[in-house]
């Protein structure tokens, strides 16, 4: 929502582009149709294109999503942006951060730093408004001839069979049918594809509801996430404050049980609440209201992220609470995961069985987010008498004992390890990243390990150069100890998404090729 007199896309600092509907719309069958050109749909299209695969990307709207929405992009997501070739504008515009501060009744009880080191090419977290995220992804999509985007094109029907789907699409000029071998449903939390296919998100609803409000105010407070527990301006509630580029501050505040969302989102109430928070943190400067919305802390997911030829990616598959900042980041990993797998199947380099690993890997990641987010949610918005009392006890203790402050540590974001995935080989290594884990980056002196990775699979061998060759494999040889304390002879097989497929203490070319074949030759 925007202040009185301003339209939905009337931002103080961002000009929303206006995209025309296609004048002509080909009805030639498409290998992949991606429904929804939000951040997740665009990343999926870019990952497919990176591996040479065409897609048709449709979106009902004529511009980007309104408002700043998801503003925290995690390190793992920067690796995804790097792999799809979209990184540069993100690095230039976003604000990196490592530190969070928590306050209880005005007193600081905790300062935490997320893990970061000279081996990391990227910082743990970057703040950037979602419309910039979409703008920068769109710039990459528009420059990519393998992606055909159709704006103002709404999916209104879908018929599926095991070997493909027929979509009914409507734009301002026509309604037409388009066949697709595969469909990626990236159409967001209110997914039309999900509804038309009779599928439902399942899970718990948490009571916590937040108003998220952006204000513009010149300021110099560093990019540090602040969490205010039980502040004077909202007794019993929780407030989060984030800095964004362009002098924009994000203020999230929890609604109390009796408060109606309708009342709370009235402009005068938002203004009063924002002023209360700014007074509390001692800000006296002038500010302008930019945008606001309501977000609730849900944990909901589909039982299966695949239905025949349709894969659900991003918010269409799962809705997670805001505290772990996993909504967007989790979706970006979905898009990359299905992107490389589908590309290999489409090019005939892998069997369709490879796609069966999508749900266990990515739904597993969502359930892991739920477990962590539920923990944070219980702290941020205690659901019952017991949790409320213990949370208050911890905060009250934290004023005197640092160990209690640690209970308020949100522990954001570690990429999920695909330990139980059918693609993950039995562990035959000793040091460094385990099978299924995303590899930590390493500073090699003349650049980072992540910059040396091949386009598909990469074998990292420590010591002598191995005699292994495969058309999908890039081989990197490093001196022992150059990364991960790896000893002479150790080897890792890394997937296109930088997760470990297998690791060995001594390099056996046959074992490595067999692991690669097991991934690719899944009927």
């Amino acid at each position: 929502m925007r202040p009185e007199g301003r339209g939905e896309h009337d931002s103080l600092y961002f000009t929303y582009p206006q995209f025309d509907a296609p004048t002509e719309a080909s009805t030639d069958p498409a290998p992949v149709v991606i429904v929804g050109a939000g951040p997740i749909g665009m990343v999926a299209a870019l990952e497919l294109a990176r591996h040479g695969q065409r897609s048709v990307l449709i979106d009902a709207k004529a511009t980007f999503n309104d408002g700043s929405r998801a503003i925290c992009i995690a390190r793992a997501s920067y690796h995804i942006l790097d792999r799809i070739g979209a990184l540069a504008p993100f690095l230039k515009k976003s604000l990196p951060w490592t530190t969070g501060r928590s306050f209880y009744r005005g007193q600081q009880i905790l300062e935490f730093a997320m893990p970061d080191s000279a081996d990391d090419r990227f910082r743990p977290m970057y703040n950037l408004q979602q419309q910039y995220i979409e703008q920068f992804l769109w710039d990459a999509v528009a420059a990519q001839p393998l992606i055909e985007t159709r704006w103002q094109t709404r999916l209104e029907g879908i018929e599926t069979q095991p070997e493909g789907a027929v979509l009914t699409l409507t734009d301002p000029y026509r309604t037409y049918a388009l066949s697709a071998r595969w469909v990626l449903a990236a159409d967001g939390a209110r997914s039309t594809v999900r509804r038309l296919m009779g599928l439902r998100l399942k899970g718990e609803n948490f009571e916590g509801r937040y108003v998220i409000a952006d204000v513009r105010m010149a300021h110099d407070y560093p990019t540090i996430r602040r969490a205010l527990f039980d502040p004077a301006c909202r007794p019993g509630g929780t407030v989060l404050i984030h800095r964004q580029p362009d002098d924009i501050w994000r203020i999230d505040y929890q609604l109390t049980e009796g408060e109606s969302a309708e009342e709370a989102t009235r402009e005068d109430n938002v203004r009063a609440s924002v002023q209360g928070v700014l007074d509390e943190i001692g800000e006296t400067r002038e500010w302008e209201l930019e945008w606001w919305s309501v977000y609730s802390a849900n944990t909901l997911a589909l039982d299966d992220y695949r239905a025949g030829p349709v894969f659900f990616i991003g918010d269409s598959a799962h809705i997670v609470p805001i505290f772990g900042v996993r909504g967007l980041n989790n979706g970006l990993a979905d898009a990359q995961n299905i992107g490389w797998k589908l590309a290999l199947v489409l090019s005939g380099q892998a069997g369709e069985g490879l796609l069966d690993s999508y749900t266990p890997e990515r739904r597993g990641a969502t359930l892991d987010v739920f477990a962590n987010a539920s923990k944070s949610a219980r702290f941020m918005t205690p659901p019952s008498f017991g949790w409320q009392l213990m949370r208050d006890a911890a905060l009250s203790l934290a004023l005197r004992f640092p160990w209690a402050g640690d209970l308020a540590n949100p522990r954001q974001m570690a990429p999920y390890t695909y330990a139980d995935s059918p693609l993950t080989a039995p562990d035959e290594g000793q040091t460094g990243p385990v099978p299924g884990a995303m590899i930590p980056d390493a500073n090699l002196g003349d650049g980072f390990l992540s910059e040396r990775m091949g386009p598909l699979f990469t074998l990292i061998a420590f010591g002598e150069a191995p005699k292994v060759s495969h058309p999908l494999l890039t081989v990197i040889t490093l001196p022992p100890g150059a990364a991960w304390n790896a000893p002479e002879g150790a080897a890792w097989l890394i997937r296109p998404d930088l997760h470990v497929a297998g690791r060995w203490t001594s390099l056996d070319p046959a074992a490595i090729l067999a692991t690669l074949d097991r991934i690719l030759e899944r009927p």
Partner: protein
Amino acid sequence: MSAEPIYDALAAHLDTLGEAKAPLFLAKAALALAQALGDTDMALSILRECAKNLESR
């Protein structure tokens, strides 16, 4: 160690704080004492024991 000084101190604190603040005070005390105990299993087992025999008559 005699339990008596702790017993007396808890009673005195509870009387000073009153019923409304008692739950929060006791929750803080339990958490802090368990932390000082430094033995998670022992603390959890004591909590389980304390949850017994609470029926009013």
